[in-house]
């Protein structure tokens, strides 16, 4: 009986504390990665770029992803200037194709194109379709917990793996303890890990299909002093998507 009581005390009072303490950086980033990369999904998003001169440019696009972000298709709906343009990213954005409806041409882009700004925004193609990048391209270390944007957060430092060609030398990430949503991510310069290049702030967290989802995110470019706001207008998780959707043939539709 005494034995059982001791066990209950351990389970009820001690285990959660230990669990919280024992979560390593790798454990936490694994959970973040699972949250970011659901099996499949559809989203309609609005992207608003605020330029240095304060002008705004707005884009609306549909996007579909499959195999936990390994396959991605983005198709622009607005503005009219680029309506129908589409980007297909396979193998975690190692293979990128772009379709230009005005010329009916599909161009295969090399991975260096991932560094390019997506429609001049502060998001690069790499930021949009990097799949398991947090796990595969970085090693993670847990730092001292901090409060961020009013939330109790885990703080992680992700350092670029030697073999990785990702455009950031390291990331600092604040992750809400309650739901593992990374509320803030700091991206550091590719060459100089002391230079903060961009900051991503997520907000308006809602539960969609049992998955905590940040409906709004803002990327601040610290060098150019610009920002891009992304707002999800619609999100569906675990939708059934045929593999044929992620082909050049579908890209041209």
């Amino acid at each position, binding site marked *: 009986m005494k034995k059982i009581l001791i066990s209950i005390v351990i389970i009820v009072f001690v285990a959660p504390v230990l669990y919280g303490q024992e979560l390593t950086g790798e454990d936490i980033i694994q959970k973040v990665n699972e949250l970011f990369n659901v099996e499949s999904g559809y989203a309609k998003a609005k992207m608003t*770029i605020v*330029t*240095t*001169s304060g*002008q705004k*440019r*707005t884009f609306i696009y549909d996007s579909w992803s499959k195999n936990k972000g390994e396959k991605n298709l983005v198709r622009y709906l*607005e*503005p*009219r*200037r680029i*309506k129908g343009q589409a980007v297909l990213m396979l193998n975690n954005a*190692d*293979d990128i194709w772009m379709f*230009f409806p*005005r*010329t*009916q*041409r599909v*161009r*295969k*882009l*090399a*991975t*260096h*194109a991932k*560094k*390019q*700004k997506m429609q*001049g925004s502060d998001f690069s193609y790499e930021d949009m379709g990097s799949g398991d990048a947090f796990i595969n391209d970085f090693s993670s270390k847990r730092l001292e917990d901090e409060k961020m944007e009013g939330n109790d957060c885990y703080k992680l430092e992700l350092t670029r793996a030697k073999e990785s*060609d990702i*455009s950031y030398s390291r990331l600092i990430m604040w992750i809400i303890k309650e739901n593992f949503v990374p509320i803030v991510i700091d991206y550091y310069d*590719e*060459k100089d890990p002391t230079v903060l290049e961009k900051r991503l702030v997520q907000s308006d967290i809602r539960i969609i299909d049992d998955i905590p989802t940040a409906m709004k995110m803002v990327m601040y470019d610290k060098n*150019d002093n*610009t920002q891009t706001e992304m707002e999800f207008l619609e999100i569906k998780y675990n939708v059934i998507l045929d*593999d*044929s959707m*992620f*082909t*050049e*043939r579908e890209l041209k*539709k």
Partner: protein
Amino acid sequence: MKKWISILVFLSFCLSPLMAQDRVELFGYFESQAMGAEIKNEFLLLYSNKLRVDLKSSLSDNIIFAANFDYITYHGKTRWNILDFLAPNIISEIPQGMESFYVLPFSNRHFLDNAYIKLSFKHFDLTVGKQQISLGTGYVWNPTDVFNIKELFDPIYEQPGHNAVRLDLALGSMSTLTALFSPEDTWENSAKLIQFKGRISHFDYSLMAIEKVWRFHDYTEFDMENMNFLELPEKRQLLGASTAGELLGLGVWAEYGYNWMGSSQDFYELVVGTDYTFDFQTYMMVEYYRNTLGKTDYQQYDLNDWMRLIAMEQKAISRDQVYVFIQHPATDLLSIGLSIIYSISDNSVALVPTLNYSLSDNVEIFAYLNFNFGREGKVFSKNMGNGGLIRARVYF
């Protein structure tokens, strides 16, 4: 009058059911453009306005109808004397009394550029009607594209539609077989194409065979019956291949086409290109082009070479050329670039600084200047006219 009424009746019959549907889209753009060139110490200007109206309708989940109508007006210098661009030794080839035929006219025109229906099924797409045909991986030159020739200073401008029946057959997720038939007056003269597209690792590749009649002109003889230069149609059979992928972090592509000609000399075309985006967002591209139809010495260029180049019947008259393009986003809304086109065979070069500015979500401005640095008689000689172009485009 009767003709217009018939057209209106036809359009109302065709468009009414389409417009009644929810999924009909009307869009397009208006483009106003000014182009100038310094010819014989005089700066000549040509203005144009273009209205393009696109219509796209999803008739059902797997049937799409798309069409576009272009209306273009020209103003200013609408008749360019081609002799102004040519060297005296070339002009001397012109038969006496025919000088007045060597004019490049810009006449107002309106036409149905594309109009097609596309049926999409699980394993194949069938496209019937006037449609764009884009072949090859090259940026400026496409050895395998026997349907289009790109404008050297503006290679990404849309290409015209071609009447064709096209079948794209999916062979798994990574391969496609395309068969295309572009009808002419007889089966013999009609263009036929078969293409296989696949992927190996990070490389896309395609293999193709094409047969098409190439409608050259002999610019030393005038056909009074057709009121045009004498047409010399000749059958062209092409076997080609193209690829695009990545090597050592660089984007790479190549395209090759060998042409068997009905009566004139066989030739081949080759393109090899590479590109890279630097960390500071600057994009750079280099493309090399060889066309064995081109000459190795500029003194071999003749009147037909020049006229076929100006009339865009032939992609190049010099054998080897290199295109270098550098572009940098100067601000979020402004990109500046520079194209350098070097004709290796005759050692002449053109510099083309470019500018793209996003005035608003649906308004963009594109401009370029072109400066030719080559002796008289070479591809990029000053005779070809230093100048430029500015274009404002509004999308709706």
